[in-house]
């Protein structure tokens, strides 16, 4: 049994807290959040074993620090935890922040602690499915990921900003800067979401995937958007985001070589993004506590025991799917 410190009691943070409390591997969960009403409500809901903390200092030597605070606020906390030799699980989906989190790799290896970068729905489950699917290939040439939907308000704001910001693609061994909102592709997600137009955006997935797949030629990430999303993307959000978005989905397409044949594999998942992100972060935390994740700062694509993590996720209600039949990235 272990003590875990969780930063963030929003839509994703609350799901992580509930998942960890029900996991049976965490005996004390300390939750911190600047919104004290929300924090007290969550701690009261969680019952015994959950305590409310204050501030951003890491105290009482937790076994792991889970960071589910809004994107842009995670790297400082992660750096402090690594400095103190404590394992970190982050949920950021902001490109610049993911880059800075990956830069903690050297210190994390020196301290011999894992820093899981982007343990959410996308990035997170997408990285895990890419690594899992890659097992059946001799060589991976292309990885294309896409998502629909948002979690809580912080996720919705990040989604809105991403569509008007510069995205990054990996193409033929080079990083390419791409305008957000460009590159429309119709991507098919698991039912009932179905086909959605997806566009480039400032998404960090390529940063997490390229370093884990040696020789990969193309890595792209897109997010679904409506005409209204694209029209209003450069403007501030015209109305406050919902407390939580509706049903979301992710899609991971792998292209590569098996023997002498070129093959395509498509994986996906459907869930409310905050629920799935909470389950992924909680599952990653459980594996960190079990010493299953090696030291260093990387995404879940760098975790080799994908079966173990996917089985833990299945036990938490997140069941990915695979498309069988024709490829549908048209």
């Amino acid at each position, binding site marked *: 049994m272990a003590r875990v410190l969780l930063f963030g009691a929003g839509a994703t943070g609350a799901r992580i807290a509930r998942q960890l409390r029900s996991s049976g591997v965490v005996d004390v969960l300390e939750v911190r959040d600047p919104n004290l009403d929300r924090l007290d409500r969550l701690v009261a809901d969680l019952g015994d074993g959950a305590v409310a903390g204050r501030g951003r200092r890491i105290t009482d030597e937790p076994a792991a620090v889970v960071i589910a605070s809004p994107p842009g606020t995670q790297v400082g906390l992660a750096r402090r935890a690594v400095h103190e030799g404590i394992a970190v699980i982050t949920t950021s989906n902001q490109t610049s922040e993911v880059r800075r989190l990956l830069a903690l790799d050297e210190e994390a290896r020196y301290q011999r602690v894992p820093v899981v970068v982007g343990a959410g729905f996308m990035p997170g489950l997408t990285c895990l499915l890419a690594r899992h699917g890659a097992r059946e290939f001799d060589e991976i040439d292309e990885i294309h990921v896409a998502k629909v939907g948002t979690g809580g308000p912080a996720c919705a704001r990040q989604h809105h900003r991403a569509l008007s910001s510069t995205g990054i693609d990996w193409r033929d061994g080079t990083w390419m800067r791409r305008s957000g909102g460009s590159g429309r592709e119709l991507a098919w997600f698991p039912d009932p979401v179905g086909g959605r137009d997806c566009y480039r955006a400032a998404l960090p997935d390529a940063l997490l995937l390229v370093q884990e797949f040696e020789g990969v030629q193309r890595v792209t990430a897109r997010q679904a958007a409506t005409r209204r999303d694209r029209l209003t993307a450069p403007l501030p959000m015209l109305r406050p985001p919902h407390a939580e978005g509706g049903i979301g989905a992710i899609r991971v397409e792998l292209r590569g070589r098996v023997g002498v044949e070129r093959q395509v594999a498509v994986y996906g998942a459907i869930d409310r993004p905050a629920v799935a992100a909470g389950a992924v972060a909680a599952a990653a935390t459980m594996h960190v506590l079990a010493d299953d994740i090696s030291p260093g700062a990387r995404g879940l694509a760098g975790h080799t025991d994908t079966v173990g993590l996917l089985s833990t996720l299945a036990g938490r209600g997140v069941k990915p*799917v*695979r498309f069988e*039949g024709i490829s*549908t990235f048209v």
Partner: protein
Amino acid sequence: MGGGLITLIRRAFVAIGAGIAVAAAIRVRGHGGIPPQTGGWRELRGDDLR
């Protein structure tokens, strides 16, 4: 001079009208591509998780 301008405007309206008519016909009569006709999503289990 005045007659030439009127002709230009008339032609512009005819061109815009023709464009609208073609766009409307495509919108109403078009099929919008063919969704996948085969295959489906299957939950990962058994051999997928070994």
